[in-house]
């Protein structure tokens, strides 16, 4: 019903979409950020931008919230206002998606109270900012959190447990997160190259994204509305930090999400495409095994980096914008295909043929998810 992206690349779903459609990215090499001994390539907010943007709507509360809470509130405010709902109603459910929330406060509380390191506390403050007093749900499922949050919100809507769901994904980077990915040797020293034969790892990124979901009769919805079809979450049961080699879990998730659907109507696949050797090979297996090798497939990590808890929501919004504009976005950073199974990576902006898209996502803990959306024509 309403959505918004707040990312280093821009603010507002349309503005961010236009920046991406022009091929822009603000990801770059950071030499001494966060006091890390090694540089990293990533996409970070200007800290002043967060404070200034937040102050436009809440000047009195600028010191009350952490940067993580602020970007979540900035994205949610715009999405809620576009949806035109009363977010304070007890029929509105907040679902917050993040992996690490305010984890940087473990190093230094910076004047915040100790309970601010708890994800539930940030979620309460985000919901309460909009006057909502119901218990918010925090979905913290590593990299799949953003799709997991939407999957959960849909079940609450379908079961009549709420009238509207505000799904907000957000992630800020810190020494904690980057040092961990560096210790895994998972980061690329340059722009990541999803599905490329020369890919060496991922880029990390900051961002927040919010979608307000509601229930409605498809026939009366305005043109361009995002319509949820189905979703699934399937574990690999293989390894806590490595995906199944054969893409078993993701393949199962795709099969469940697309059960009974004519796959020729799928305009594109928005893959996770982190550009790590293992992830991209695994995804190519899952796509191949689901008979989707010929479906145009893209990854948006070259524009935003991997925005962790925000990724599932942010990339859903971007895919919605793309399909609404009749476009499949190219995979920035990709040059030469080099994955285990042949898939059709979209490298140039192309016309979308089809009525729907599927968003794939995988992460540590053996997690995989797929979510399928149509766009009202």
């Amino acid at each position, binding site marked *: 019903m309403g959505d918004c992206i707040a990312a280093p690349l821009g603010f507002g779903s349309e503005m961010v979409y236009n920046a991406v459609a022009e091929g822009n990215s603000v990801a770059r090499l950071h030499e001494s950020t966060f*006091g890390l*001994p090694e540089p990293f390539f990533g996409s970070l907010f200007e800290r002043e931008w967060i404070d200034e943007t937040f102050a436009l709507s809440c000047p009195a509360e600028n010191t009350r919230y952490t940067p993580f809470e602020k970007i979540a509130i900035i994205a949610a405010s715009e999405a809620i206002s576009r949806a035109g709902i009363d977010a304070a109603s007890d029929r509105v459910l907040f679902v917050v998606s993040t*992996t*690490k*929330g305010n*984890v940087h406060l*473990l*190093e230094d509380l910076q004047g915040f109270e100790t309970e601010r*390191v*708890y*994800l*539930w*506390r940030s*979620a*309460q403050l985000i919901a309460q900012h909009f006057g909502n007093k119901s*218990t918010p*749900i*925090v*979905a*913290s*499922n*590593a990299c799949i959190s953003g799709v*997991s949050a939407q999957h*959960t919100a849909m*079940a*609450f809507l379908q*079961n009549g*447990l709420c009238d509207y769901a505000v799904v907000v994904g957000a992630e800020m980077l810190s*020494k*904690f997160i980057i*040092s*961990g*990915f*560096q*210790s*895994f040797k998972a980061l690329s020293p340059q722009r990541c190259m999803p599905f490329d034969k020369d890919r060496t790892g991922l880029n990390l990124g900051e961002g927040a994204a919010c979608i307000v979901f509601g229930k409605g009769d498809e026939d009366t919805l305005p043109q361009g509305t995002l319509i949820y079809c189905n979703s*699934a*979450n*399937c*574990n*690999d*049961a*293989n*390894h*806590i*930090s490595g995906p199944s080699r054969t893409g*078993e*879990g993701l393949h*199962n998730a795709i099969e*469940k999400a697309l*059960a009974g659907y004519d796959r020729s109507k799928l305009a594109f696949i928005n893959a996770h495409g982190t550009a790590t050797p293992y992830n991209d090979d695994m995804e190519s297996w899952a796509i191949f095994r689901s008979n989707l090798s010929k479906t145009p497939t893209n990854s948006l990590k070259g524009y935003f980096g991997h925005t962790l808890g925000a990724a599932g929501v942010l990339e859903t919004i971007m895919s919605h914008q793309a399909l609404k504009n009749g476009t499949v976005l190219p995979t920035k950073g990709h040059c030469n295909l080099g994955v285990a199974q042949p898939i059709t990576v979209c490298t140039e902006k192309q016309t979308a043929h089809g009525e729907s898209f599927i968003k794939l996502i995988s*992460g*540590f*803990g*053996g*997690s995989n998810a797929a979510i399928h959306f149509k766009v009202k024509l």
Partner: protein
Amino acid sequence: MAYINSYCKIDDSQVLLDGQCLIPNDEGDASAWAGSIYRHLGIQYPKFFKMDTMCKFGFLASELLMRQVGATPEEPKKDWAVLCLNSCSSLDTDRRYQTTIQEADNYFPSPSVFVYTLANIVTGEIAIRHKIQGESSTFIFQQLDCEMLHRLASNALAPDKASNLLCGWIDFEFGHCDVLMFAVSEQKKTDTAMEWTPANIKKCFMKQTWRNFYI
């Protein structure tokens, strides 16, 4: 209608299985306590020793429940899901990891610690052990709300999703363990099975956890 076929509670003092004390804690310290439950169960699972303490307790409770319902670990389970709720996400390990990066001259981040700084790894460990291939999800709340657990779990039990579920509260922080897990299925599998309702969840949940005293 679904049924609680078995439930398991592990706190600092004992392991309760279906309301009966199975193992009292004679060890004291949480890590030794987890080790003594592991030995009591008589299993051989070397990965256990790599887990952080929260994962160990979640793993042990799941092990007991799966035995109660007669599930074999090696058998792939597409119609099973695993759901964990807690308050601490992974903060116990987060704090431990933070000490490895806090000071520039004592900087040694380790991937084997970092991987446990994700709240959902406990569901991953359980899924790997029992080959659970359905949904795996972790949700964070200030406290265990039986109504919320019931809703989240019931969502996962939908016909096209899963017909069996390991779910509950798996929390570990400041050396205190607070685990209450349920084996829930659409079929009755034990003589002591109860209906899967918020009221019955509440019955299994003893209010006085360490956190009630702590906060």
